[in-house]
C-alpha cells in the first residue's frame, strides 16, 4: 500500500484492523467518533465483530468478555468515556486479559469540551480503577507513529496479558497526515491462549476468567505475579526519544502533540544560540525515568510542557530527583501552545519555575 492521506482517527481504526483486531466494542463520543464509524463499516463486512454498546460501561465489559474468550479486542473513547470504563479496566488487568484501549483526550474536568487536551495523563497512567495494577500506555506524536503503535499494541497486550492504552489528544485524532500502513513491527513470540474460556476442545478441564481471590494467600500470590510482570514491562517496553540532547543548555519534556510544538520551538531557540534538547516520553507508563540520567552536566533546567496544568510534571519531578530546576508551561481549555510560547518560556525560565 502506497502512502495515503489519513485522518488520525481513521488511521487508528485501519491500523487496528492491520494489527489483527477481531472485535470492537464502543460507545460514541467526540472527538474519536471516526474510529467506530470506520470500524462499523469494515468489521461486519469482514466477518469480525462490531458492537455499538448501550454505554461505555457495557462496552468495556464486552471487551472483558471477548478478551476472556481469547479474541484480539479493542475499545475507544475520550476522556469522560474513559472515566466510565475504569472499573472494567481494572477487572481486565486483574483477570490478566489482553485488550487495546484508545483514548483520544478532550477537555475536562467533567464534560469539559470537545477540543484537544492532555489532561488525562493521570487517568491513563494512574487510572481510576482499584488495586495494584498498571495499564501499559503509549503516547505517539504523529499519525504514522500512532499507526505503528496500534499495530503493535495488540501483540504487546497478548504478550503480557494486560490492557494496553494508546493515548492521543483530539488534535492527533482529527488532523491529517500522509502515512504508510505497511511498516514492519517487532515480531514477538505469542504463545497460544490456552487460558482462554473458549470451550474445552483444545485442553482438558475448565478455564476460569476471574479477578476474585478471597484467600489472602491467593490474592497476594496473584498480585505479586502481576507485579513481577510489570517489572518486565518496565524493563522491556519503556520507550522514549532523545532529540538534540548532546550537552543541552535546557531540556524540554513533552509528549504527543506538545513534542511537535517543542520541535519547532528548539529550532527558534537555536537561532538565539541556545541549545535546547527534548526528552519525548513515548511510553507514559512505564515512564522513561532513565532518560533523565542522561542529561548533560551543563543543563540549566528542565521545562515540562503539557496541554494540562501539570500532570506528567510529577513523573518528571520523580525522575529528576531534585537535580535540576524544573519549570512548567501549559495551556488548557483546548488551546495548543504555539512554538513562540515555549520559546518565551525557555527564555524566561525563572518565571515558570516550579517551586515546591
Amino acid at each position, binding site marked *: 500500500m502506497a502512502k495515503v492521506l489519513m485522518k488520525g482517527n*481513521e488511521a487508528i481504526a485501519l491500523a487496528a484492523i492491520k494489527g489483527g483486531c477481531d472485535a470492537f466494542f464502543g460507545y460514541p463520543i467526540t472527538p474519536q467518533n471516526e474510529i467506530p464509524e470506520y470500524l462499523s463499516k469494515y468489521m461486519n463486512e469482514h466477518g469480525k465483530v462490531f458492537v455499538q454498546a448501550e454505554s461505555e460501561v457495557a462496552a468495556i465489559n464486552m471487551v472483558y468478555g471477548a478478551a476472556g474468550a481469547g479474541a484480539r479486542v479493542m475499545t475507544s473513547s475520550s476522556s469522560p468515556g474513559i472515566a466510565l470504563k475504569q472499573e472494567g479496566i481494572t477487572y481486565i488487568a486483574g483477570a490478566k486479559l489482553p485488550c487495546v484501549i484508545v483514548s483520544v483526550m478532550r477537555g475536562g474536568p467533567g464534560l469539559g469540551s470537545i477540543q*484537544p487536551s492532555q489532561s488525562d495523563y493521570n487517568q491513563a497512567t494512574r487510572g481510576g480503577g482499584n488495586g495494584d495494577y498498571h495499564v501499559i500506555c503509549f503516547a505517539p506524536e504523529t499519525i504514522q507513529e500512532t499507526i505503528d503503535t496500534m499495530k503493535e499494541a495488540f501483540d504487546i497486550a497478548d504478550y503480557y496479558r494486560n490492557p494496553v492504552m494508546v493515548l492521543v489528544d483530539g488534535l492527533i485524532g*482529527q488532523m491529517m497526515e500522509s502515512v504508510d500502513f505497511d511498516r514492519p513491527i517487532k515480531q514477538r513470540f505469542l504463545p497460544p491462549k490456552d487460558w482462554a474460556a473458549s470451550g474445552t476442545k483444545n485442553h482438558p478441564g475448565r478455564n476460569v476468567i476471574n479477578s476474585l481471590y478471597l484467600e489472602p494467600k491467593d490474592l497476594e500470590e496473584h498480585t505479586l505475579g502481576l507485579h513481577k510482570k510489570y517489572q518486565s514491562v518496565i524493563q522491556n517496553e519503556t520507550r522514549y526519544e532523545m532529540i538534540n540532547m548532546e550537552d543541552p543548555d535546557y531540556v524540554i519534556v513533552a509528549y504527543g502533540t506538545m513534542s511537535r510544538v517543542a520541535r*519547532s520551538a528548539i529550532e527558534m531557540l537555536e537561532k538565539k544560540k541556545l541549545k535546547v534538547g527534548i526528552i519525548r516520553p513515548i511510553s507514559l507508563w512505564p515512564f522513561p525515568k532513565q532518560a533523565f540520567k542522561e542529561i548533560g552536566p551543563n543543563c540549566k533546567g528542565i521545562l515540562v510542557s503539557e496541554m494540562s496544568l501539570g500532570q506528567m510534571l510529577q513523573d518528571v519531578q520523580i525522575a529528576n530527583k531534585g537535580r535540576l530546576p524544573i519549570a512548567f508551561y501549559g495551556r488548557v481549555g483546548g488551546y495548543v501552545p504555539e512554538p513562540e510560547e515555549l520559546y518565551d518560556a525557555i527564555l524566561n525560565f525563572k518565571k515558570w519555575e516550579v517551586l515546591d
Partner: protein
Amino acid sequence: MKRITFIVGHYGSGKSEVAVNLAIQKKVDYLLDLDIVNPYFRTRELTQMLKEKNIEMISTTPLNGQYGDLPYLSKDVFLPLIKKDCQAIYDLGGNDAGAIILRQFSEHIDESVDVLLVVNVFREQTQSIDAIIKQIRSIESACGIPITGLINNSHLLKETVKADLVHGDALVKEVSKQLHLPIVYTAIHANLYDPSFEVSGEALVLKLYLRKSWL
C-alpha cells in the same frame, strides 16, 4: 463563478481549505460553514480573518459559540439564497452525512447554483475511479441535488511531489469523462505551484489557513 457554490466531498478531501481559498480569491460576500460533522478545523475558526477581508462568515448561532457539538444550523444560512445580489460559498461537512443538509435548500437550486465535489485521490477511501464515483453517488443521493462539477485537490500534504499531481489529474479526468462532469478547479499548494504545469480547469493556488504552521 456562479452566485452560489456548495462545496461537498469526502471527509478530509480539503473542502474547508478549498472553500476559504475560493472565498478569498473570488472575493465573495459570504462564506457559510455548514459543517455539523467535524469538530475541529472548521472554517468558522477564521471568522475574524475573513471579516477583515470583507467576507461575512455565517455558521451557528452566537449562543452555540464556535466550538459547539450540536447538529444545529442558524436560519441565517438561507440569507444568501434569498438575497439575490450577493455571492456565497457554502462549505458542507464530509460524506453523505455532511451533504444531507443540502436537502433543505432544494427549492433554491437553479441555474445560479453550483454543487462542486472536492476529491483527493490520496485519501484512503477515494483512491480509485470506482471509489470516487461511489462517493459521488452516495453524496448525491443524500443531498438530492446533482453534483455539477469537480475540484481536484489531490495531494499528500508536505510530501506531495509533481508526479502525485499528474496521477491525481489522470484519475479525476477519467471520473470527469465517465460522469460528464467538468473539472472546474485543480487546487495546488502555493509551494508546489508552477504556472507552466498544465492542469484541468482553473488552477486554484492554495494557502493553508486552518493547519497549524508547526504541523
